[in-house]
């Protein structure tokens, strides 16, 4: 595989993902409605009763809706990562993944291309969400929006890798839908997405400890610090580490020579 071949193949995989996204308008609206409900209904209620004292990276007192935006950006990417993996399971069941895996392209490249193209879709959703949130009066520093872009690529690919790993271990589409819900909500609630960890610790030390072992906490904190032009090396290290671990496990899962169950299932049938 040369660079031109890789480029064409990546553009094709991205184009197919974008086309799917455009064709499934409901998916776009659902992806936006979910965080907007949290922001406009849940956070609006808390805004009146709960303010947050000055904690890094914030340099001033902030309202609750401002605090919750990075968590909702993470939620968009988490859902999207799972959606991307769900479509991998669907492709596997329908057989079209066999066509992809039997092309003369390295497995690692194919998986990365799928994860990146899903991430591009999630980034479109994130910026649409930020625009609507701003229109609704939730203030964010505009200077943080551009530096946020590479971070969203990293966090998006990391959450996709997590979803891809799950898709490589799960046999049926129906099971995957169940596991998605089982995973998404605990990951979201047991993180710093909705409350700062010091507040969680006041309520339950155990819960705060659990939140600290949740990679999604670091996804949210990385987005939060970047949005406010701050640097959070711990969050960056944990996100990169999560990507390396789940990326490697996904590659193993989809490589038959390494005993990958997903690759074998893709070949089965007929």
């Amino acid at each position: 595989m040369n660079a031109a071949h890789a480029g064409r193949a990546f553009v094709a995989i991205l184009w197919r993902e974008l086309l799917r996204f455009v064709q499934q308008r409901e998916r776009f609206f659902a992806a936006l409605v979910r965080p907007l409900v949290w922001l406009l209904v849940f956070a609006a209620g808390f805004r009146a009763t709960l303010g947050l004292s000055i904690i890094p990276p914030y340099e001033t007192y902030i309202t609750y809706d401002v605090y919750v935006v990075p968590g909702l950006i993470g939620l968009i990417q988490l859902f999207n990562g799972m959606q991307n993996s769900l479509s991998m399971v669907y492709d596997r069941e329908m057989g079209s993944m066999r066509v992809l895996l039997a092309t003369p392209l390295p497995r690692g490249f194919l998986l990365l291309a799928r994860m990146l193209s899903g991430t591009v879709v999630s980034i479109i959703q994130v910026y649409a969400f930020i625009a609507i949130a701003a229109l609704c009066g939730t203030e964010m520093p505009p200077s943080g929006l551009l530096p946020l872009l590479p971070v969203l690529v990293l966090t998006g690919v990391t959450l996709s890798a997590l979803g891809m790993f799950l898709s490589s271990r799960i046999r049926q589409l129906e099971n995957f839908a169940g596991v998605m819900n089982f995973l998404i909500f605990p990951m979201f609630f047991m993180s710093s997405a909705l409350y700062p960890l010091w507040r969680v610790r006041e309520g339950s030390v155990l819960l705060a400890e659990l939140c600290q072992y949740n990679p999604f906490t670091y996804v949210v904190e990385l987005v939060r610090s970047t949005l406010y032009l701050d640097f959070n090396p711990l969050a960056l290290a944990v996100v990169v580490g999560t990507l390396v671990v789940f990326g490697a496990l996904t590659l193993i899962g989809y490589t038959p020579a390494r005993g990958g169950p997903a690759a074998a299932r893709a070949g089965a049938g007929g």
Partner: protein
Amino acid sequence: MDAASGSRAPERPAAEDVEPVLRISGLSYAYGKTKALEDVTFAIRPGRVTALLGPNGAGKTTLFSLVTGLFDSRRGDIQIAGHRLRKARSRALAALGIVFQAQTLDLDLTVTQNLRYFAALRGLPGRAARRRIDELLAEIGLSDKATAKVRNLSGGQRRRVEVARALLDRPALLLLDEPSVGLDIATRRWLIGHLHDLARDHGIGVLMATHLTDEVTPEDDLIVLDKGRVVAAGRVEEVIARSGAIDLDAAFTNLTPVTHGAKSGETA
């Protein structure tokens, strides 16, 4: 048809003298403790149609999954167009066109979109891909369906598109796993005829898995697979003669006695 269309290949050496496009040696595979393939050895020649005949469960799909790299076996060797699948996977798969048993087109894309997507995965540049797609659609008689969504095509039309997709990158070896399943008689006839045209005119080695003896023509090469083992291989008439049968149906029954519920040596 003019010479530029390239419908006839230049003269080639006799098929017997050239290197096989697919060489399988001592290949075995098991699902856990259940053996699916055992010590399978054969070669496919370019410019020939080879039927891989076997009853359901004989191991045909497993064999195809191994040849397409979806499964991996450490016992045995697969070479495609001279490239070892395990050592040079990309080069080996680049020489391969595949039609899977299950239909694998994206239903929500048009015929051309499906073909362009696959052409890009194979690394074909845009202009060359467009030219090749036009050529192939004309060849399979579906030029007027270029912009139709696959969802709106019949099963036979979808199968034609899948054959075109497998040929986009001019493969040396074309694999088809029970490609006639669910097709009407006219489409089956077209398909079998088209495969012979491809082998004769373009020198492609064609390996078609089937469990239907009427899809095998007398001029084909034949491999009979039963319970994961090659039980006969050669030209069709040789296989019939060696099995002591009067025709291919009878030979197939003799060669796969347990599956067909017949005692070895019986002729149907």
